[in-house]
């Protein structure tokens, strides 16, 4: 979105609160109509898939969290930004509906109490709760449990990787808890923080870097938090990584790199890359995880599993790209955000399932144990 006149052609983004609908101005060479079409159709497909997001009765016991809590957590995290930041009211409305649906599925947060009673040391209930707590959706009983669990010395035991720890720290700050470690120190030990040689990135490391960025910038809300050296690192190498994964037709990771591009203090945008991702989006709005083949299997559940993550990422990245360069921390009027908005990081539910060994945050590792 652009300045006071959304068709003024300026590259300076307006505060999100203005929400000029249907702007046609070109943002950083991008095609706003294309971005809005991609986000809108992706959300409509997701909206039609609500039944697949619904949590089963055995969600706290036997259900596979990769197919239950993880998709729902992603839905909440990514639609929250869209519902507060997208310039188009119709897109915000769709996202708002999905976000509210996700909260309802948690039974107003009571779900997290059940999960914590089952696994007091698990981080994922705290991370998922943080998504909602950030917006002011809270559950007093759950908060009591969380304060106890996160106050234990055992909570400070290192997580399986530093990127995941950033996600936990994010949740702590979103909820208003003391942080169990220093964010900057943990960041310095991640692939992003140590500025790994860019030619060493494999798929797993790539997901690590994208999520380092998401946690650091609070999922694109606080781009100014990016230290200059890391911003320069990403400015240099994201174009290369984006190209690599577009060529591999791994659309969820391509979408994540496009989102990362929009998280830089000065966003780097690639209109041609957006056109390539758009070409991968099916007419129904879904975006396959990889390739051009239709999702395996005829039934809805298969299509959901094959597409939900890439489709969510597409809507999220298109929103970030659309917002442009100017808005800062999450103070938009549509966000209740009662807590300090200057909190980096966020839980990182992620569709790259454990079977792909992507080091993505999400409930799978602990919930499955």
């Amino acid at each position, binding site marked *: 979105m652009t300045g006071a006149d959304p068709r003024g052609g300026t590259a300076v983004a307006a505060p999100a609160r203005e929400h000029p609908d249907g702007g046609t101005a070109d943002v950083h060479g991008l095609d706003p109509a294309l971005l809005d079409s991609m986000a809108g159709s992706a959300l409509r497909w997701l909206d039609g898939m609500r039944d697949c997001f619904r949590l089963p009765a055995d969600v706290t016991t036997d259900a596979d969290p990769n197919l239950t809590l993880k998709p729902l957590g992603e839905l909440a995290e990514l639609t929250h930004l869209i519902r507060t930041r997208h310039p188009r009211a119709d897109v915000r409305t769709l996202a708002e509906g999905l976000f509210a649906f996700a909260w309802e599925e948690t039974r107003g947060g009571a779900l997290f109490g059940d999960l914590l009673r089952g696994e007091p040391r698990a981080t994922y209930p705290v991370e998922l709760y943080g998504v909602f707590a950030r917006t002011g959706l809270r559950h007093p009983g759950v908060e009591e449990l969380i304060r106890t669990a996160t106050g234990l010395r055992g909570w400070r035991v290192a997580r399986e990787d530093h990127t995941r720890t950033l996600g936990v720290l994010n949740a702590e700050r979103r909820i208003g808890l003391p942080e169990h470690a220093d964010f900057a120190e943990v960041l310095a030990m991640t692939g992003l923080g140590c500025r790994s*040689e*860019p*030619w060493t990135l494999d798929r797993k490391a790539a997901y690590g870097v994208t999520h380092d960025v998401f946690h650091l910038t609070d999922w694109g809300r606080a781009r100014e938090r990016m230290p200059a050296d890391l911003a320069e*690192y990403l400015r240099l*190498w994201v174009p*290369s990584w984006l190209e*690599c994964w577009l060529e591999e037709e791994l659309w969820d990771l391509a979408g994540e790199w496009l989102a990362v591009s929009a998280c830089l203090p000065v966003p780097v945008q690639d209109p041609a890359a957006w056109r390539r991702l758009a070409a991968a989006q099916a007419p129904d709005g879904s975006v396959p995880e990889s390739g051009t083949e239709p999702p395996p299997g005829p039934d809805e559940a298969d299509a959901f599993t094959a597409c939900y993550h890439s489709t969510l990422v597409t809507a999220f990245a298109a929103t970030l790209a659309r917002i442009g360069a100017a808005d800062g921390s999450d103070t938009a009027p549509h966000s209740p955000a009662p807590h300090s908005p200057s909190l980096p990081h966020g839980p990182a539910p992620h569709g790259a399932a454990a079977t792909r060994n992507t080091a993505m945050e999400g409930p799978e590792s602990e919930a499955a144990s």
Partner: protein
Amino acid sequence: MAEQAQGISPLSAVVADVAQGVALALRGGGGSYALSDVLPPDEAVAPAAVRVLGADALAPYALDRAAATGGATDRTTADRALVRAALTAFAPGADASEVSLWSYRGLLAAARALLPADPDGWPPEPPAATAWTATDPWPKLAHRASQLASLALPGLDTPLAAGLAERTDDLARGFVRAVRRRDWLQAAGLGRWLASAADVPDTLGLDSGLVFVRQMSGTQPRVALHVAAAARFYGRGS
């Protein structure tokens, strides 16, 4: 040579042999270098091999230009004849690609700079554009630049090198992509250009990247050649 490498065309086998000799010379081994020693002039594909390698056929002479151009010895006379044959037989046609034009100009420039003057004069320099070095998207630029890595040679101050010097970040992005694709030849060529640049981003890790490419590529002589040139001429990756 060709007999030892079944399934490889004689030309590629000859090119590999010469590249190996050049790399060895750049690493400081094998005694003094002469193109006509590593490439017998009576070899049928000798002119083609020189044309393929371009300026690299003469790269070891850049180590000691005075010795190479000090006077026409038997060896330099033989080298001059080899290069002249290549320039004559494989002059770019009207529809030649930019890569073909520039590799020809690279060989010609190296001959002028590194061999004793040809009494008959060297062939004329064909016109070649540089606009693409400013306008190519980085993946295409990187691909072309890697094919022209033989022009990354001290003393060959071509407009091509000047153009590429303005695109260091993009060449570095190409290096990253090439390594990820395990395209070691492209990576090595780009690494060589980057070694010649003064403003390579530190975070690229060029020195370890060049070593990595050499080790991962196994025994590809042209990869070894580029990595050796980067080390010997520009002090990178060694």
